[in-house]
């Protein structure tokens, strides 16, 4: 598998291994970071630095990386997200939130769950299951839009759809997610 080869290369020939790793995943890592920092007035250089730091961190944490737990791709995304959060924290700027229907915020009944990590974890699990239950195209649209911050036009190009089709599918997918999560 690609991951095994990459891990072996990173161990035996770090320079080549890093080259392969970055060639394969720089677009994704860059997008994850850009989605978090780009809207907070970070420069392109800051985003690139954060991406480079993510790859370096992955290299230095090879010993703790467990391929059975997740793929390199996923682990890089986790590291990228954490690094972006750290960068935001350093700027002491609270991340922005978006409104419900257009941008995917979900209204929840009951107590203020943001104060309750257990409830939030449960919601994460439910959300994962709900997104996984979508068809492949809708799943990709939701992940690209809300995780990678891609625009409808970018998603349309990636998935060979029209922009209006992406918007329609987004709307329907969010509706399904809300139904699935028991939220009106």
């Amino acid at each position, binding site marked *: 598998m690609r991951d*095994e080869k990459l891990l072996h290369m990173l161990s035996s020939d770090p*320079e080549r291994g890093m080259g392969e790793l970055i060639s394969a995943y720089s677009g*994704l890592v*860059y*997008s994850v970071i850009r989605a978090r920092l780009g809207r907070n007035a970070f420069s392109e250089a800051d985003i690139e630095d954060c991406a480079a730091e993510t790859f370096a961190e992955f290299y*230095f944490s090879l010993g703790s990386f467990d391929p059975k737990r997740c793929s390199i791709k996923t682990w890089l*995304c986790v590291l990228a997200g954490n690094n972006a959060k750290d960068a935001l924290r350093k700027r002491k700027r609270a991340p922005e*939130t978006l409104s419900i229907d257009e941008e995917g915020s979900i209204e*929840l009944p009951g107590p203020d769950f943001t104060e309750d990590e257990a409830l939030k974890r449960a919601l994460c699990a439910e959300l994962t299951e709900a997104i996984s239950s979508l068809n492949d195209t809708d799943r990709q649209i939701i992940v690209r839009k809300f995780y990678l911050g891609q625009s409808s036009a970018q998603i349309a190009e990636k998935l060979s759809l029209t922009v209006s089709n992406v918007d329609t599918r987004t709307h329907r997918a969010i509706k399904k997610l809300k139904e699935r999560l028991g939220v009106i």
Partner: protein
Amino acid sequence: MKTDIKELFDKLDPGELEMLLDGIDGDCDELTRERIRKNALARIGRGKPERRNGRFSRRALIIAAAVVIALCACGCAYVAEAREYNRAMAFFEEHDITAEGLTRAEIKAVYRDIKTESFTYGRTAEVIAHSLFEKRVRGYEIDPELMSPVEAKRMWDALLESDPDRTSGAEGVHYSITGSETDLLMNITANTVSKLDGEEVLWSARLDAFGLTRLFPLADGAAAAECSAARTDRLKLALIDGGGSILFVQDLKKELGADEICSVLGEPDGGASAFALSRSDAGNSVIFARYSRTGELIKNNEIAWKNAFPSFAVHMGKGYLLYAGMNDVVLLDADGIPTGTMQIETEGMYCSIWDIAVYNGRIWLSGVGNPEGYLNLQTYCAKYGIIKALNERYGEVMTPVSSDELVNAAREWHTGLLFVIDENSKAPEVFCSVPGALGRKLTVTDDGRLLWECESIVTMDYVPYRNAYSFDGKTQIMEYAFSEGGELISVTDTGRMGICTAM
């Protein structure tokens, strides 16, 4: 109340995220990717960071300096000074040292400092360090301000050793790429493969529209491969006969959908078999393609591949053996269909293979065994530094680290291993092991002996100003000769030294 999907995405654990990322990719342009690559490599101590802002090229500075020289030469009063400056610049050019950022006086001062081998001038270390970065000499990420004259001298020696022009020419019969042609956009448009005996060119074969990436010497001729990065169009295989004639050029990408040629073997009928790795999100596969001497594809199989990069292939009986990276070998029949796998293992060691050879009907694998836990130690060391790693291991007794202690540790961590496999083997068996050594090259001689180069670790030094989390040491290259019967005929000190990096 509301919460944000984006916020929830950031709280997913890796297992949950894994479920959602299938088929998801992002975008960044090539320049951005390159900058990320360089900056990431710099962060792990393997290169120099890339700046976003442009800067003057070395050539421009050299030209500018040359203009200054010309102006100075106009005045007799400046002749002597100009001569020294010219000598300094020539010296800089000869050794590919950049004069970027140096004043004229500094260039001369650095030149004098190096020529006299005093290494006491403040900017000398910085200049050497910069050039080492440029040449990507492994392991030398330096804070010049911390360098003593002795250390600067050592860096200078490393810089000289890295100069390919200073390395002696290859001896005996060998292949080389003697000329690459590029178009105005610097795309490679042709390559010339040459077979040489010492410095004498025996033949040359020009491959048009071929950006040669790998050359596979075969018993009679050579196979040239143009391997591409994944998902690009160019993947070609050329077969050249023993006289330098190109027998065929095949485009594997179109036919087979592969994206990297890993190994090529000559076949008894004069054709060749290629093993190529195809990567995709759906899973990797190894493409087996058997060509006739005229380039006709006569056998072709796609093998689902869950192993690492298949770096070596050899004939085994009527079929093939593929080294699948890590500790695995895969056996294939003559049609390229997998018939079994074997684990390369010996008690308590993680093994990696360096070379493979077919000798006397059996397959020999040369490599290195590291004790279990060594990889964790490597990673720990990379993260926390050498001193801390050693202190963890030896209980705070390793500061400062003596070379003798390092040699002992490195010898403890490495064992040279020679494995053998035959058609009846259920697993590779350790044929020979040498503690404190690295199994390297295997050669079958014309007089029917198997030579195994095994390098004994003899020195190991920790360099305090280095930030590469590794030690560099030297090895003594020993040559073990075996007869067809498998007896050890001789052990010879080749007199050559090798380089070993531990950690």
